[in-house]
């Protein structure tokens, strides 16, 4: 597989189509990328919607896991293998397990009790969300926005472990170190809130 054929991610797929009408092979591979992008995108949006509309918390959690998978797939189609697998490993494999664990442990019982009554706030909220959604769709679909080119010669280089590690420990070393302080604060906070007996 020619790595240049997929040199730009699916996000920029529509630009490739415009710029590369001469190269057949290029064109066909872009189509595959675009197809993957739209399929995975549909799955992720659909599962996200299902996640917020399900009544049973366990089912919501399951749809969220599906969503993480779709996101992982999107990362893969952008040649970010490392991020893709870390996404599945950390979110689907660890964090969501804890979610499911807690949901089952709490055993929320009759989910119908969680059902809220109709209220005008919901209508207003839905209207506003719809407005924002339309605005975003309009902006992305119709604006002639110029997206900057990628910094990398080959898109396949972006997602490699070596590259991410290199960036993390040179350019982004400071944020990386700050993250450890953030995690420490979160641990202290979790202990404060959750420990059975203090003092």
């Amino acid at each position, binding site marked *: 597989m020619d790595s240049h054929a997929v040199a730009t991610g699916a996000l920029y797929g529509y630009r490739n189509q415009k710029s590369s009408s001469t190269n057949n092979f290029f064109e066909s591979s872009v189509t595959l990328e675009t197809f993957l992008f739209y399929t995975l995108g549909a799955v992720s949006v659909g599962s996200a919607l299902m996640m917020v509309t399900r009544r049973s918390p366990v089912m919501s959690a*399951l749809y969220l896991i599906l969503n993480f998978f779709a996101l992982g797939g999107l990362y893969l189609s952008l040649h970010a293998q490392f991020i893709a697998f870390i996404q599945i*490993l950390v979110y689907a*494999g660890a964090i969501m397990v804890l979610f499911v*664990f807690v949901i*089952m442990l709490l055993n929320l019982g009759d989910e119908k009790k969680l059902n809220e009554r109709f209220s005008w706030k919901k209508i207003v909220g839905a209207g506003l969300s719809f407005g924002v959604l339309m605005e975003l769709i309009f902006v992305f679909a119709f604006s002639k926005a110029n997206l900057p080119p990628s910094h990398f010669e080959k898109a396949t280089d972006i997602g490699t472990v070596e590259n991410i590690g290199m960036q993390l420990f040179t350019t982004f070393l400071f944020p990386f170190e700050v993250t450890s302080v953030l995690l420490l604060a979160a641990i202290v906070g979790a202990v404060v809130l959750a420990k059975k007996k203090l003092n």
Partner: protein
Amino acid sequence: MGSLLLISVIKFVAYVSIVLVTVIMLVYAERRVSAFIQNRLGPNRVGPWGLFQALVDVVKLLLKEDIVPKNAYKPVHDLAPIISIAVALSTFAVIPFGNTIELFGTQVKLMIADVNVGILYLLSITSLGVYGVTLAGWSSNNKYSLLGGLRSSAQLISYELSMGLSIIGVLMVCGTLRLDQIVLHQTTYLWGWLPAWNIFLQPVAFFTFFIAAFAETNRLPFDLPEAEPELVGGYHTEYTGLKFGLFFLAEYANMFTAGAVITTLFLGGWHLPYAEYLGLSPTMLSILQVLTFCVKLVLVELFFIVVRWTIPRFRYDQLMNIGWKVMLPLTLANVLVTGAVMLLIQ
């Protein structure tokens, strides 16, 4: 392009059949070994030495009625065994069981999928296996099942950390996430005579990984999710027939994969020490290497089985203590020491 596709198909068919047959043989092996340990005969009636017993069992499970409890949540009840078996079968795909060979004029790597972040693939897929167990427990709407499912998720989360952290040591030594590269790295020799297997370079990591592998495969002494005396059968109490069979199969497939991973990461994979000095033809060498891999794998599996029938089950608090207070600090210390040693050597 055509031959590439052909090779892929061959690999895939061979892979599925090999895994399934091996797993069925593992069941047989377990029953014979347990019988040997308990001074019994074990299955010896169906076929020569009872070899077909496992096959007959499979047929029995297939023909049994599928019973779903009235209050179970059916979609998830059906989904759970599928998740379990899918995860169990797909992990083996990245294990290299031989060196790169020439076939139909192309270089063929003896592994199903050549993922450049192989170890991450392995870890992330294994980490999903817990859903099968947990969801089976939850959807059965049975307290024993639920307890089994909960125990399983707690246990897997606890040991996944040590598992991942023990691999870090290996990664630091080998400097790659590709499993075939990791094996290649182990084919060199230390001081000219000791094979640079990671079991020698990373003994602590090997030890912790091995224990974590027991926990991750729900094998004794870590089989709390299905502890018979306390939980009837744990998460699969409410499963019968084919769906139970899938869980059963998944358990052994997991064990099989765990053995393969241990062989690959720590025991030099397909590497047979000094075989390259024998002056064999490339084809012969390849066959020898694949055989070496199989022998190592069988030995690891036998160890798994022997441990199961000789060591009693942990108590739940002991399990948690070992996971968080022994294994985790040990693996972290291993990473630190490895880093320090590597810095000193440089």
